[in-house]
């Protein structure tokens, strides 16, 4: 029966569903069996599309009503929700959108979906105590290379191909005042940290080398290894990177990106 409830079309015109309903359901004095089943099918779409509209206003704003409807109905019919938590409903939307060849501005839509879902993930992520600055100060100079910075579990790092954050703000604004939507932006690499501070969800744009280093740090690499990798990926020298470390660490700890520093014993 669950499969019928996820069918995207009215079950009244679905012969298989009608046969199932007549075999399994009683109907009532007022409704036929398939009409009873249709109540639940319709509700499946009403509830889940409403949830996705709420969670992905930027994606909806880019696509417009018709393409948005096509995308989310296709998504819901193809991928069953698996979590009890409706906030996780859109977890696979970006990946799904990436597979839809018909989507206009597909790469931009995918980036927007990733950005918007990151907000949902961060919103109710576990709380962490802020990093004690004294812990950073207590790291011996010769231990930094093997030190690991622990990221906040609510930190999400996004390397995107479009400036989705200002676009989303514009789309929400035009939705509010009913004016025409903004023009879609051309591609531009952006590196974002989405995180929570004082119960609010924020995003910061990072320099490419800072983003590369933070991404390696967030994977649990010791700082020495992380710096080597980040410098190589960003195409900068270790000296150039090293000159920025103090500023970055101060910013990261102040913003709550990192919540602890762990120094393992020298081998």
């Amino acid at each position: 029966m669950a499969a019928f409830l996820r069918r995207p079309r009215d079950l009244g015109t679905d012969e298989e569903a009608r046969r199932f309903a007549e075999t399994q359901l009683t109907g009532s004095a007022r409704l036929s069996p398939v009409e009873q089943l249709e109540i639940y099918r319709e509700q499946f779409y009403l509830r889940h599309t409403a949830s996705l509209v709420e969670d992905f206003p930027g994606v909806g704003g880019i696509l417009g009503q018709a393409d948005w409807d096509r995308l989310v109905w296709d998504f819901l019919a193809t991928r069953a929700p698996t979590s009890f938590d409706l906030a996780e409903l859109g977890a696979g939307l970006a990946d799904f959108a990436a597979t839809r060849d018909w989507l206009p501005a597909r790469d931009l839509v995918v980036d927007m979906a990733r950005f918007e879902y990151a907000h949902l993930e961060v919103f109710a992520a576990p709380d962490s105590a802020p990093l004690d600055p004294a812990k950073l100060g207590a790291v011996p100079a010769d231990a930094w290379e093997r030190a690991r910075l622990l990221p906040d579990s609510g930190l999400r790092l996004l390397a995107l191909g479009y400036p989705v954050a200002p676009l989303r703000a514009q789309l929400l604004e035009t939705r509010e005042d009913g004016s025409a939507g903004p023009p879609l932006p051309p591609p531009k690499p952006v590196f974002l940290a989405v995180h929570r501070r004082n119960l609010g969800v924020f995003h910061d744009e990072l320099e490419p080398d800072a983003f590369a280093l933070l991404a390696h740090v967030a994977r649990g690499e010791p700082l020495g290894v992380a710096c080597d990798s980040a410098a190589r990926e960003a195409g900068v020298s270790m000296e150039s990177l090293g000159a920025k470390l103090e500023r970055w660490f101060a910013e990261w700890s102040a913003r709550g990106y990192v919540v602890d520093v762990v120094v393992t014993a020298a081998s």
Partner: protein
Amino acid sequence: MNEARRGLPDLGIGIGLRVPHYKRLFAERPPIDFVEIISENFMGVGGKPRHHLERALATYRVVQHGVSLGIGGPDEPDRAFLERLRELVRQTQTPWVSDHFCWCGAGGAHLHDLLPLPFTRNLVQTIADRARKIEDFLGVPFALENASSYLAYRSSVLAEWEFIAEIAERADIGILFDVNNVFVTAYNHGLDPIEFVESVPPERIVQIHLAGHTNLGTHIIDTHDHHVSEPVWDLYRLTLERTGPVSTLVEWDDQIPELEVLFSEVERARVERDRALAARGSGTSTLDAGAREAVRQAARAWPEAVATRHGWTQGGPREPVTSP
């Protein structure tokens, strides 16, 4: 088992804790007997939901109610879900925890709905076994609520009231009795709502839900977006005349009004409750034969549709993600 409410306390008349009311509830702290939270809204671990839960716990007596367990589904209840639920139970110190007689999905899919069950003997045993284990696992009294339904199965061999009574007895759990759902289900399936109320074992009822609904003519949807209807007030009194005082919750989950409207509904519930308990004390009833027949007639009537399409929700809107 003859002890009323399974020995659980009568907490009075409460309201559902819903996002649009957070600001005023936590700033003004109006007196409320208790608030009911939807467990799933607080099973994340941090951020605003946790913050607001802590404020609720500091201000009000909190009771937990769930919408996702799907105890009658083909899959066994999810262990990870139950562990998170148990953690929340520890945090809230809820005097009991409840969910619904329903299924929510199959094969790992979760449809986020309270889907109706076939009332079969096999399922009685399955749900009773699961309910007993769940109560043991959670370490707190467990109750299941009769859900509204919009379809019925040919395979059912029991009346709904027989089904829920049998499970409650076998599992030795409580019943969260939703009198609005009784009316909705009676209307949708041509049942007698009076017989429903009078057939549920009163000593098993640990909590009552009241809510509004939407009549579409062909069927009623349990929308929780209106005032409680008059026949449902009648069923409420009839229930209390059988049970004695039971914790009662006014639910309003869609088109959520100002607190004053909700509080006026709570006051109405208090008046109806007092009437019912007075009648019970004097060995009479607030519903004579004519009044009972009027309730039955309301469940048989076929009014003009007030809408053609309507969604339903449990627990009100989710808390919005704020971004600067």
